[in-house]
């Protein structure tokens, strides 16, 4: 990793990812998306556009849905991060949002799905009973090229139902 012949200075960064503490030594320019995928080998987080438009790389940083391609790893020092791998229960049970995607055919190729799942998981914590319009607003910043979105909107509403049944 050299640029203009200069070696990057490395920074020690502590991340708690899906409950597990990791310490990585990364250059300041390492995007959080690349750290998750390349340094931690958590390849569930997908990288689409790498400039904040597609939403595929969305993860939860201290519970807040955030574009991991628009955040430096060093900025996330000591943060608690949840990736799509962290949504599933330890015994493999799917989370309400994941189950709703399966039930409603909310995915086809699956590339965009990790970003939708994390975005919707965070949004339903704020809006537990969204209207149809609110469901559309929740996913407004995520691109999907397969489904035409209708089944994803259904999945948002179904996930809200499943969450309410659990609580």
């Amino acid at each position, binding site marked *: 990793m050299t*640029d*203009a012949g*200069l070696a*990057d*200075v490395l*920074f020690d960064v502590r991340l708690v990812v899906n409950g597990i503490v990791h310490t990585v030594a990364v*250059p*300041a*320019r390492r*995007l959080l998306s*690349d750290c998750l995928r390349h340094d931690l080998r958590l390849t569930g987080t997908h990288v689409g556009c*790498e*400039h*904040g438009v597609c*939403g595929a790389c*969305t993860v939860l940083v201290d519970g*807040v*849905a*955030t*574009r991991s*391609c*628009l*955040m*430096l790893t*060093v*900025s996330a*020092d000591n943060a608690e991060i949840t990736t799509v791998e962290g949504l599933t229960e330890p015994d493999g049970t799917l989370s309400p949002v994941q189950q709703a995607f399966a039930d409603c055919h909310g995915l086809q190729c699956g590339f965009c799905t990790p970003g939708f799942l994390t*975005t919707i998981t965070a*949004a339903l914590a704020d809006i537990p009973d969204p209207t149809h319009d609110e469901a559309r*607003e*929740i996913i*407004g*910043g995520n691109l999907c090229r397969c489904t035409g979105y209708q089944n994803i909107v259904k999945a948002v509403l179904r996930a809200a139902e499943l969450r309410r049944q659990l609580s």
Partner: protein
Amino acid sequence: MKPSSFGYSRPESVAEAIQILASIGPDGKVLAGGQSLVPLLNMRLAAPTHLVDINRLSELAFISVADGQVTVGATARHTDVLRDPVAAAAQPLLRKALSLVAHPVIRNRGTTVGSIVHADPSGEMTAVLALLGGSVRLASTSGQRCVTANEFFLGPLESDVRPDELATEASFPVLPPSAGCAFAEVSRRHGDYAVCGVAALVEIDEDGLVARARAAYLSVAGTPLMLDLTEACGDVGGDLEQAYFAEAGRLAMSQLRPADDIHATASYRRHLAGVLTERALYEAYQQARGRAHD
């Protein structure tokens, strides 16, 4: 699509941040929410030699309402400002405009002060600052200064922040009791940059006549453009219809010189400016009437 190398500092206080900015020279850059800066780094359209990450400056995470101003600190996220009920009551235009800034996930990280310093001519919050006659406070090792909106925006992506300065807060005057405000824009897709947008402010007098009508425009000029449209609002009171503001829309169209680009032709933008001016002034007028009757 990866940033080039840069040095990195993460100060814990404003005092430390401005010390670092003073020492790193003109190629340093402040990193706040990064929702505009990091795409520029990723695409290598910007290559600063040193980033000063202000995200740990919790002393700047405030939103306050005092002395007729809503003041937003440099690390307050768009979402924090959008959800602040006291700020929304004091200046409703903040919430109206912020709900049109990109998408919720971008607003979770992006900062209101950062978007103003970025000075994108398509940015909603730059137009809000210009319309309301707000100001930005800048700090450096040589002291502090306060710059008003009409002097702050110098050109596209260029604001009056010197390399050694940190924008610490932006202040927006509260909405007067006899005034109303509105924000209207058209974008290709929900959450995209607006092809044209209008922020409007209408004040009415005790007889219900329009005493003052102003509008600020995004995406039609290199800096947020503010027009006083009061002269196009005749001395008619009572329950006005939207068509009353058509003359103001025509006046705005005659004064704007937008450019063509891949998103829209200049004439389409002018057309939108006219329609959106009429719509936004009418909505602002209705709010002013509602507030006057309360």
